[in-house]
């Protein structure tokens, strides 16, 4: 029973990988606890957003992911 985490931008550098699996069910507190250190701290930053299965969460703290879900961790963007 697992959730897939996708790390975008500099979060992939901090994680040392672009994606990984984590036990489900998963809420925000557990996620930050599991991804300790610099990565966990970065996630708490105001500008990091979260999407579940391609849908952006209005507030990442309401995260409630279950088996098979894809959770994307999105740092500030820069395109163009």
């Amino acid at each position, binding site marked *: 029973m697992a959730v897939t985490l996708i790390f975008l931008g500099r979060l992939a550098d901090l994680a040392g990988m672009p994606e990984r699996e984590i036990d489900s069910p998963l809420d925000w507190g557990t996620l930050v606890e599991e991804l300790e250190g610099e990565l966990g701290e970065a996630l708490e930053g105001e500008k990091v957003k979260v999407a579940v299965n391609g849908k952006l969460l209005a507030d990442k703290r309401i995260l409630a992911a279950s088996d098979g879900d894809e959770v994307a961790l999105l740092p500030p963007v820069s*395109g*163009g």
Partner: protein
Amino acid sequence: MLDIQLLEKGFSPGKALGLFAKAHPEAGGIASFVGKVRMDEGVKALELTHYEPLTLPGMHALAEEAQARWNLDGLLIWHRVGVMRPQAPIVLVSAAARHRRDAFQAADFTMDHLKSDAWFWKRERRADGWHWIEPREQDHDDLARWR
């Protein structure tokens, strides 16, 4: 007509614009912007990453918003992802409209949103490795003009 694309490989803005103009014979004007990898000292390459489930749908939503705000005949948004060399085109935005103000404004609006409100992450390679690029304060100010 909307032409929204994410491109893994290099493209020719001139060729794309020629085809876009041909597809919109009714337009009285076409305003276009080409964004390129700047030739900055020490920058060897630029990489853009995206997140498939959000990036392309986000570009479509942006195009629809531009269409709702201005009277457009067509809007083209092509954006590169992957590794690019200095001088390579990154983005092409082209707006076709009956009248020029709509075309200018829609292209400007679309570019401001692609810079700091679209799902892309940019990093550049210098002699000492890769560096992530954060949007500039100016990019956020530019975006705020449309609110």
